[in-house]
């Protein structure tokens, strides 16, 4: 289905909105760059320019040289931001401690996120980065841009900010690094009114949702991740911009269990596309793989001679639940035992495809180690349909939020709260049935404690009588 924006969107033309000419964008020669020295000595940082990889130090130096040669009216914050940034970092490397303070009350009117105050505690020595705030810009679903958008935002940031940016931050936003307080509102105006985009989430907000490339480019996608991400981003604007959660909360959307955005490890609520019918098998294509007519892994890892394709060794024998077999020359799958590892589908994509009754698995509680250790998400809903307007999904989300906002402690992630109160209590609150998929070894793990009212006929138990036979 073709994408329909929720309202008409501005068409951005770089030629109309550009601030810099081609000559200003490339206003130095490679020879000049080679001989260019920034105003601070940075021997340790210059070590990072060596080796085969692109270096942020080299990029920052290019930026410093270009800004040094730009006219005064072509930038609205100090031109030496990149140089002082490198200087303060070198000093931190030498001393082994940071000189950045972060946080504060800077922001744009009415928004409680998207701007992160950054200040250097060495303002006299590095005045250009004394106030050097970060802005997060909500990336489009799957990070698909056109060049007009990218060029326009680069010009805007060169003009009103430091010209340094990070594409993309861990949450997914475009991260614009370094501007002053007075530039925040004009940048916000241009982002929203000219570029028709928005700033992202930070602080105790819903963070900018992020998704894989989904059905736009991937045959494995079981759900339209872009549509779902776009819908929830729009639907939960208030949660994105006005903080009221105990701590941060992230959504991420993977179209299939390959998990290209790693939502299972990186989001408080992870959406993973899946199917509940059978893996589709093209037996002729299976024969093609066995005969060597079709390259396994769609030709990936083909730079080395791995020998003849061996379906037993490379696919059937690697199935984690041993649910595959060759029977009378045909590949068979016991789909009830399939754990969606995707290995067989990835290895033989012409022969095997996910089923057609598709939907989403919801997992909750992943986080990186800030206050407590890192943890992966726990499965909450093994399968639910994922179709517009996604009311079933919104229902689960809102129950989670309601309970977490009520019971969660300040600065406690939802995953930490689940650890504290226990999964049985959490799913009871969400009115979700316990499912064997929620635990690794359901046949041996007594993860559900039945209550008397859950069991037909109930039971009677006298604790005093029990204690006569079982001492504490």
């Amino acid at each position, binding site marked *: 289905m073709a994408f329909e924006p929720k309202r008409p969107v501005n068409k951005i033309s770089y030629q109309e909105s550009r601030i810099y000419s081609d000559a200003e964008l490339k206003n130095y020669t490679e020879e000049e760059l080679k001989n260019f020295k920034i105003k601070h000595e940075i021997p340790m940082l210059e070590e990072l320019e060596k080796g085969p990889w692109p270096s942020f130090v080299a990029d920052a130096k290019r930026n410093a040289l270009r800004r040094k040669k730009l006219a005064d009216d072509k930038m609205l914050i100090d031109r030496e931001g990149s140089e002082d940034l490198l200087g303060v970092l070198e000093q931190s490397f030498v001393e082994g401690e940071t000189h950045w303070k972060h946080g504060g009350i800077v922001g744009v009117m009415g928004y409680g996120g998207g701007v992160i105050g950054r200040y250097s505690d060495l303002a006299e020595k590095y005045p250009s980065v004394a*106030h050097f705030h970060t802005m997060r810009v909500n990336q489009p679903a799957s990070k698909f841009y056109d060049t007009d958008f990218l060029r326009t935002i680069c010009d805007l940031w060169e003009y009103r900010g430091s010209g340094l940016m990070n594409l993309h931050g861990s949450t997914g936003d475009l991260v614009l690094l370094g501007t002053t307080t007075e530039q925040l509102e004009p940048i916000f105006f241009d982002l929203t009114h000219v570029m028709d985009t928005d700033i992202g989430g930070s602080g105790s907000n819903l963070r900018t949702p992020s998704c894989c490339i989904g059905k736009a480019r991937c045959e494995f996608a079981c759900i339209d991740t872009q549509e779902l991400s776009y819908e929830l981003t729009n639907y939960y604007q208030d949660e994105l911009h006005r*903080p009221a959660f105990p701590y941060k909360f992230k959504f991420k959307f993977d179209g299939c269990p390959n998990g290209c955005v790693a939502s299972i490890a990186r989001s408080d609520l992870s959406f993973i596309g899946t199917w509940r019918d059978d893996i589709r098998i093209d037996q002729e294509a299976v024969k093609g793989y066995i005969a060597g007519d079709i390259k396994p892994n769609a030709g990936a890892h083909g730079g080395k001679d791995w020998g003849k394709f061996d379906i037993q060794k490379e696919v059937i024998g690697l199935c984690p639940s041993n649910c595959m077999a060759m029977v009378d020359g045909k590949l068979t799958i016991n789909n009830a035992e399939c754990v969606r590892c995707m290995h067989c589908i990835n290895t033989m994509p012409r022969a095997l495809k996910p089923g057609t009754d598709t939907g989403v698995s919801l997992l909750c509680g992943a986080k990186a180690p800030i206050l407590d250790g890192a943890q992966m998400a726990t499965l909450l809903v093994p399968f639910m349909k994922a179709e517009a307007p996604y009311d079933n999904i919104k229902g689960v989300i809102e129950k989670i939020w309601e309970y977490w906002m009520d019971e969660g402690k300040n600065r406690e992630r939802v995953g930490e709260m689940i650890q504290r109160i226990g999964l049985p209590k959490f799913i009871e609150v969400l009115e979700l049935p316990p499912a064997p998929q929620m635990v690794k070894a359901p046949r041996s793990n007594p993860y559900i404690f039945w209550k008397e009212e859950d069991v037909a006929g109930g039971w009677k138990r006298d604790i005093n009588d029990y204690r006569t036979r079982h001492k504490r």
Partner: protein
Amino acid sequence: MMEELKKAILEFAEGSKKTKFYFKDMEKAVSEKVPGAKMREVKKAASELVMEGVLIYFSTGSSTMYGLKGRGMTEDPTEGSE
């Protein structure tokens, strides 16, 4: 109801020994003063107070607190009282 909530928020903010506080603590205090106040309504009232320039957000980047404008913090953290 909205005015009642705003008043309760301000009473909490002005009476608080701390210059910045979590939403949850504010919401808890407000619901004691205005029984039946829903979390979403408290949030709406707090957002209105921010728009009116009475309350401010304080963000570390990872978590956010609320505060009374002019009390304790300025846009330059080196100038504030804490």
